[in-house]
């Protein structure tokens, strides 16, 4: 019987629009969460696929030892594509010339993502995508090497014990990376030719890589199998998001932003449900009292209302899923068109997440109101004020807080982030509540002498002080989260813009002779070309730290018994294993900041400044004595400062910078970067004609791709912002609607007593205007606080104050809340009084 009653109530109430707020809240929370998570998941996998080009694969496993074939077979069995890539340094000879090169030996299938481009002659304009690899006895060689070795296509290059015919010019490798200065020019050969070179010996310094490509599930499944067998010291498993390139950083930040924005969206959606749930139960107080008077048992009432709620929830979740899917499909289509790319389908997870959000928030937020509802005394039929006990109110707060925390946790699956957000939110909520009450008390005194609509508004604020401070909590929360997402988005975009301005350098030059520096700089100036400083480069090795040699190249003897060496020399540091580009300078380069020690200024004492991450990895600190070897000369200098370097800046960056007196006598070449718009490319020839030895590296391809990715991310972020905005408006709407229902009776009575509609709607509007403005102000305060924490702790950006928002917050709050209030009220007073009285009956 009870299920019939339950269903009947639900059906009629749905039809009569009495459950609209609750249903809308659940529907929209499910919609928001679903479209947010579907969208971010699909977009992210799209972006990742797109950016995977920069790795030439989805994942790379690299190792200092050969990688077991069994691991490759396992991957292939799981449907993954694989390719081998082995990279090492070697000398290459062409006739009498020799140069240090990076040999890259790759197996069939490489690159798994992106493609190679080659040309038939160096420094030509023509370059084509090529879908094959160098054949037997062939090598493809980077343009820079043609210059260095005075090569021509068709010449022979000697590497180790093998001879290779140089058959093509390598113009673009997807995985070349952004470290233009730290790498030598590349020679690409086929993996099968590797052994013949005889260069791979036990103990040689070789990087073995296996590239993988496949679906996210395949990759994750494989990694799960692989992870237990990996050794942290020798193996490294990474995706495009790991690492230090500008792209990886952009992606990481975008991902964090989207996660955070979605989390805030989830919190907003849950808040909307919480507001609606409260109201849902309140409006049933009378019904329960009547049921009890008619002899309904507690058990029956429980069942009726739990079923009622569950049915409502499930129906709403269904509608929400449908709506979310439709919205997401539309947006994906639009975004895909913008990006010119397919976005891969998402898994089931977003659907589960969205349904869980709807169900969990509906059930948990209704738990306490429902308990109270069921405990309503039957005597309420005679005394409308009776609402039963309020003793378990703490239970409500605990349940609500726990629910929000659980949702954060479910959604982000990140313990720390959820806890930080939650704790921050809790503190903010308490503050908001306190400040809100204070404001209302203050405004009460201020409003006394005002005109009649104002007086009515003030009286209303005063009478509902308790309810209002809770209301303000949801208003402020919504406004705050909106401002937060908006401000954060602006910060992120501005940061990217700073990193990749239109005049970002798109050419690097290397190998400038010292005597040419001044002339080249003049030529840049004459043509109005923006260039970075010229940096001298001296190749050298770091050989010892505080008198202890670094383990740079594993020696033959040690190679046989490495484990032993390791235990004996626990103190011995791992070296770089290659020549470093050393430079000298008087001033700290731009985009570098000192984190320890002091920059030398004009102190002529020999000394060196080292990059932060190198210092960390090699356990170096201020005062350590480093020994360097430059062309057979060794010298020792103390570390006097440690620098943080922005590797995203497209300028020459260095691990080691010396003061001028230390290095200036060593032979050096100079490097720099400059910006020359594409349309002025023809000037290059004229510009560099007098300097035939200078090599030019074209960064446009990389820059172009980087820009594209950032554009895509910006679109994604804009969309997420819109969704969060909708969720925020929903909360405001739910709250306004709920409080409107609460004051319905009062309005009807005033109306019956002859209060003009204008007066009523004005006083309600003023009341909401004030509430909105105060909420907006508090929200701005809370937003600044949270943004400061997020910027410094999560996004690793500099903190900023957003003065604009101090105006925007209260203003937007007043306007939005005031307008919503006015609309809700207008609907109420437009009806004639008789209808209203009926409605209340």
């Amino acid at each position, binding site marked *: *019987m009870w299920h019939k*009653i339950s269903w009947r*109530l639900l059906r*009629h109430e749905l039809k009569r629009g009495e459950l609209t707020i609750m249903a809308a809240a659940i529907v929209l929370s499910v919609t928001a969460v679903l479209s947010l998570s579907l969208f971010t998941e699909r977009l992210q996998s799209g972006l990742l696929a797109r950016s995977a080009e920069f790795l030439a694969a989805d994942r790379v496993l690299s190792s200092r030892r050969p990688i077991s074939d069994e691991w490759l077979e396992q991957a292939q069995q799981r449907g993954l594509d694989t390719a081998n890539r082995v990279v090492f340094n070697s000398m290459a000879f062409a006739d009498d010339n020799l140069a240090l090169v990076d040999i890259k030996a790759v197996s069939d299938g490489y690159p798994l993502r992106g493609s190679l481009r080659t040309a038939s002659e160096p420094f030509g304009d023509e370059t084509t995508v090529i879908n094959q690899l160098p054949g037997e006895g062939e090598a493809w060689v980077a343009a820079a090497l043609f210059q260095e070795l005075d090569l021509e296509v068709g010449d022979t290059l000697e590497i180790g014990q093998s001879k290779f015919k140089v058959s093509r010019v390598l113009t673009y490798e997807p995985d070349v990376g952004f470290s233009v200065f730290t790498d030598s020019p590349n020679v690409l050969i086929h993996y099968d030719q590797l052994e013949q070179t005889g260069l791979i010996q036990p103990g040689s310094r070789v990087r073995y890589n296996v590239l993988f490509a496949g679906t996210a599930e395949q990759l994750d499944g494989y990694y799960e199998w692989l992870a237990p067998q990996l050794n942290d010291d020798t193996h490294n498993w990474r995706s495009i998001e790991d690492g230090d390139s500008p792209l990886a950083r952009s992606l990481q930040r975008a991902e964090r932003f989207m996660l955070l924005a979605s989390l805030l969206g989830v919190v907003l959606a849950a808040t909307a449900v919480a507001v609606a749930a409260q109201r849902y139960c309140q409006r049933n107080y009378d019904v329960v009292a009547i049921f009890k*008077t008619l002899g309904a*048992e507690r058990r*029956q009432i429980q069942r009726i209302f739990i079923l009622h709620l569950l049915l409502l929830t499930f129906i709403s979740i269904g509608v929400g899923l449908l709506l979310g899917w439709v919205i997401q499909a539309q947006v994906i289509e639009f975004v895909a068109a913008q990006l010119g790319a397919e976005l891969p389908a998402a898994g089931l997870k977003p659907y589960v997440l969205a349904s869980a959000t709807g169900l969990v928030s509906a059930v948990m937020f209704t738990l306490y109101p429902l308990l109270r509802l069921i405990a309503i005394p039957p005597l309420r039929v005679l005394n409308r004020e009776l609402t039963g006990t309020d003793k378990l109110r703490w239970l409500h707060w605990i349940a609500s807080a726990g629910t929000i925390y659980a949702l954060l946790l479910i959604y982000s699956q990140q313990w720390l982030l959820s806890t930080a957000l939650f704790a921050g939110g809790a503190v903010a909520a308490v503050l908001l509540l306190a400040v809100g009450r204070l404001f209302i008390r203050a405004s009460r005194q201020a409003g006394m002498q005002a005109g009649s609509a104002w007086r009515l508004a003030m009286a209303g604020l005063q009478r509902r002080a308790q309810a209002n401070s809770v209301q303000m909590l949801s208003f402020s929360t919504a406004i705050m989260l909106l401002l937060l997402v908006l401000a954060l988005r602006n910060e992120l975009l501005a940061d990217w813009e700073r990193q990749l301005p239109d005049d970002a350098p798109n050419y690097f030059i290397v190998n400038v002779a010292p005597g040419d520096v001044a002339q080249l700089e003049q030529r840049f100036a004459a043509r109005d070309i923006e260039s970075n400083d010229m940096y001298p480069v001296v190749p050298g090795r770091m050989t010892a730290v505080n008198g202890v040699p670094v383990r740079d190249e594993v020696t033959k003897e040690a190679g046989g018994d490495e484990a032993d060496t390791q235990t004996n020399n626990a103190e011995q540091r791992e070296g770089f294993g290659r020549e470093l580009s050393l430079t000298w300078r008087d001033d700290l380069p731009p985009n570098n900041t000192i984190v320890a020690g002091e920059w030398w200024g004009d102190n002529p004492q020999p000394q060196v400044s080292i990059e932060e991450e190198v210092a960390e990895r090699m356990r170096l600190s201020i005062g350590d004595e480093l020994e360097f070897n430059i062309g057979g000369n060794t010298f020792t200098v103390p570390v006097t400062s440690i620098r943080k370097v922005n590797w995203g800046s497209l300028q020459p960056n260095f691990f080691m910078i010396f003061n001028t007196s230390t290095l200036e006598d060593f032979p050096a070449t100079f490097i720099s970067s400059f910006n020359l718009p594409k349309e002025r490319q023809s000037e290059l020839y004229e510009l560099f004609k007098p300097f035939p030895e200078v090599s030019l590296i074209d960064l446009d391809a990389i820059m172009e791709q980087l820009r594209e990715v950032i554009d895509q991310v910006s679109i994604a972020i804009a969309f997420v912002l819109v969704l969060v905005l909708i969720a925020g408006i929903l909360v405001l709407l739910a709250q306004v609607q709920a409080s409107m229902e609460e004051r319905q009776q009062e309005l009807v009575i005033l109306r019956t007593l002859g209060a003009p509609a204008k007066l009523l709607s004005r006083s309600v509007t003023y009341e909401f205007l004030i509430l909105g403005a105060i909420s907006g102000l508090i929200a701005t305060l809370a937003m600044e606080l949270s943004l400061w924490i997020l910027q410094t702790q999560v996004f690793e950006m500099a903190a900023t104050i957003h003065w604009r928002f101090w105006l925007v917050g209260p203003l937007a709050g007043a306007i939005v809340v005031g307008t919503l209030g006015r609309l809700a009220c207008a609907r109420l007073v437009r009806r004639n009084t008789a209808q209203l009285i009926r409605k209340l*009956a």
Partner: protein
Amino acid sequence: MLIQTTQLEKKVTTQDGILHILQPIDLSIEAGQTVAIVGASGSGKSTLLSLLAGLDLASGGDVSIDNVNLGDLDEEQRAKVRADKIGFIFQSFLLIPSLTALENVMLPAELAGHKNAEQQARELLTKVGLGERLKHYPNQLSGGEQQRVAIARAFIGTPKILFADEPTGNLDATTGHKVEDLLFEMNKESGTTLVMVTHDPELAKRCQRILKMDAGRLTEVSNDVA
């Protein structure tokens, strides 16, 4: 004895001190009797009914229905007593706004698990003249019509006792008389005990007993005096 009170009193604490709404009342009503309670507004009539029906607890003394002391029962058990034995017509109707007239009337029978609730409800609504308005919601009905729905609801399941708080207060004379007739008919046919509050002397006169409430004090007046 069907209804029996001994020294039943009700006090509430207000800002201005303790308010005695009901002075100690001793009252017994036998099965099948018809009883009218009259008295000025605010004298405590509705309060007495709510105590008799177990909607509220007394501050002192006892109420027993069918020799069961309501004070010994918990709220659940009192609900059960109401479901089994008591019908109620409230001063303010108390219909459920989101259920139709028919569904409102069916509700108590359904809650008590009766099989033919709908059939009974239709008949009762037709009896009170609302056979055409079964599908209407309370706010689509006039005050008097709502009251008739409430009356039909009180009749369903033929309760042993019917408490009515001004059952005809909102009705015109003709409908009022019809409803009165219904009440007394039920009393005759099913032996339902009627306890009703009324300001209408005519109605009071039709009852076997008249009780007068005066500032919380209940006195029996002989029928012909009222």
